């Protein structure tokens, strides 16, 4: 789960990582008063999608009226399909130097890794590709956390003169990362300004598996992704017209690959997980069929933990709500029971993933 910038900065503040003074507003009219207090300000659209700067979601303003105009404009925008409902108004801090500081997980080393660069404020992945030597990487032992000497080494490399403050920011950012089950905790840019070191931006991505012990209040928005996550499933929206409900991510991807091989285009990807139950399958069907682009749905289940008869029962329950044709593939646990149940309702059942992909591509084409 990605946090909004203002959420991440709120957490940073609690950990005493310096961030610019600012306020969150939902109405452009509130911008004036804040700008009056703060002087020159930056107005930033609060969306979790990347590239909001390029999309025009960030503006600087001097003077209250200027601020209101900018806030008005940004609150009217949509960025990557998401309407901007909130903006963050912050005191403008002129960066004399922009650095990068991020903590993420190195799968291969199976530990957290701190990445830092004196070349911040830009696309760090571009730097990682073009000049990897400009990024310092340091693994952290998950049972001890960041050692003092490690924080000091990174701080010295970023800016020896301001190393004490940066050392402090590194130690605190690691605590943020550790306390909040982060997959990513990032400051880009970490800026040196006339007022000292400050985190001008803040990004936190939380491990969805740890949400049971983390509390962030606000969700990204009530999206299909969110509805799926709430039911313990995983939904990804895509650009085509074939809805895909599969148990297990690997099998789901294999299904998508085959649909493409047969010339179809998936509209989405719903992984009901290996152990999906009846209720989850019902929810999955409702979510996928609520996607207006979907012209046909394939349900591909290889029962292990999941029982095929439960899946069939779920399909039968909601079949009347679904307005597009359905191809069902059932294999594994209680396969026969499940298929028999569906055949009574005249539903197409097939026995292999290939066949399912072929059938659903045909149906999708005929319903365009």
């Amino acid at each position, binding site marked *: 789960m990605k946090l909004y910038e203002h959420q991440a900065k709120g957490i940073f503040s609690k950990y005493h990582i310096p961030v610019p003074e600012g306020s969150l507003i939902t109405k452009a009219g509130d911008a004036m008063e804040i700008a009056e207090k703060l002087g020159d300000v930056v107005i930033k659209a609060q969306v979790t999608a990347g590239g909001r700067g390029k999309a025009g979601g960030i503006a600087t303003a001097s003077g209250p009226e200027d601020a209101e105009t900018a806030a008005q404009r940004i609150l009217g925008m949509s960025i990557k399909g998401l309407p901007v409902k909130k903006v963050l108004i912050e005191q403008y801090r002129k960066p004399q130097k922009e650095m990068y500081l991020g903590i993420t*997980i190195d*799968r*291969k080393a*199976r*530990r*957290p890794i701190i990445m830092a660069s004196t070349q911040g404020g830009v696309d760090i*992945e571009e730097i*990682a*590709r073009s000049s990897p030597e400009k990024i310092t990487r340091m693994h952290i*032992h*998950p*049972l001890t956390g960041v050692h003092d000497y490690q924080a000091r080494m990174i701080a010295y490399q970023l800016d020896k003169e301001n190393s004490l403050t940066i050392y402090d920011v590194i130690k605190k950012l690691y605590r943020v990362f*550790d306390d909040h*089950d982060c*997959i990513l905790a990032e400051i880009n840019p970490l800026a040196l300004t006339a007022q000292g070191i400050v985190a001008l931006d803040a990004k936190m991505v939380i*491990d*969805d*598996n*740890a949400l*049971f*012990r983390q509390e962030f209040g606000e969700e990204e928005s009530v999206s299909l992704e969110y509805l799926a996550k709430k039911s*313990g499933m*995983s939904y*990804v929206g*895509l*650009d085509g017209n074939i809805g895909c409900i*599969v*148990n*297990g*991510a*690997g*099998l*789901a*991807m*294999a299904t*998508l*690959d*085959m*649909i*493409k*091989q047969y010339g179809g285009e*998936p509209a989405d*990807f719903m*992984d009901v*997980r*290996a*152990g999906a139950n009846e209720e989850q399958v019902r929810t999955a069907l409702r979510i996928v069929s609520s996607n207006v682009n979907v012209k046909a749905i394939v349900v591909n*289940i*290889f*029962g*292990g*933990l999941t029982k095929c008869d439960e899946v069939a029962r779920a399909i039968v329950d909601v079949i009347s709500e679904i307005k597009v044709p359905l191809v069902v593939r059932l*294999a*594994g*646990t209680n396969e026969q029971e499940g298929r028999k149940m569906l055949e009574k309702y005249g539903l197409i059942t097939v026995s*292999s*993933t*290939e066949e399912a992909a072929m059938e659903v591509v045909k149906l999708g084409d005929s319903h365009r």
Partner: protein
Amino acid sequence: MGILIDNHTRLLVQGITGREGSLQAKQMKDFGTNIVGGVTPGKDGQEIHGIPVFDSVKEAMDDTNPNASVIFVPPRFAADAIFESIDGGIELIVAITEGIPVHDMMRVCAYLENSSSQLIGPNCPGITTPGGSKIGIMPNPIHLAGNVGLVSRSGTLTYEIIDLLSGNGIGQSTSVGIGGDQVIGTSFVDILELFESDTKTDVIVLVGEIGGTAEEDSIDFMKQMRKPVIAYIVGVSAPPGKTMGHAGAIVSTGSGTALEKIKAFERAGITIGRSPKDIVLKLTNILKK
């Protein structure tokens, strides 16, 4: 007899009184696995399918001396159950549980480094040696004994491929699901090494996914293997930057896409299966020789 498990495997089922634990214990027993005990705190003295239940791994160790353990404990308690098995000195730990926080798994893996235990998973279907023993949740009927070693990051896709192999008369020595999460206990290379020195395995099928570099990391080892490997990588159609299903499958820009993985394999001279059917085709060719 395949890898990792054999007739001497004495299995402990952690979380045996839960819905999944109980159901799968039955399935494993039916398959022929020697389950010596189960653990659910507070349920000491019960029996599940004739298997004695204990409060703790230590008590189960004292009474039944298992050498392997399978974890069906819910995500928020799973890391602790693994710690308990490690401290108990269990040699092989198979964690089926899906949804364990990745920070928990980093701690577990750091802890493993100084132990005598090997962890398979988490978020994996387990290990099956047809005609021998099974630890995990792969459906019983799909297996057929043979000489193909299978290692996979997926769950249900693994079943699909095993089913297809068996349906085409191609048997398996052992099938191993190493798990789809970002941080897992055993890598492709670890399993490939075992297959390479296993007398019952002649060919290996590797099933990979988008995300991470686990597939690429195994190339150097595969190049020096005597036995042929066929690799199948799913997610060719996945758009970059989207999380496809489980946490393991995040495509970082510039690395981790299925196409890049496939290209890297092809450069190294490793046979690629384009689809499950294609795997069967290529396997048949190799096995004919």
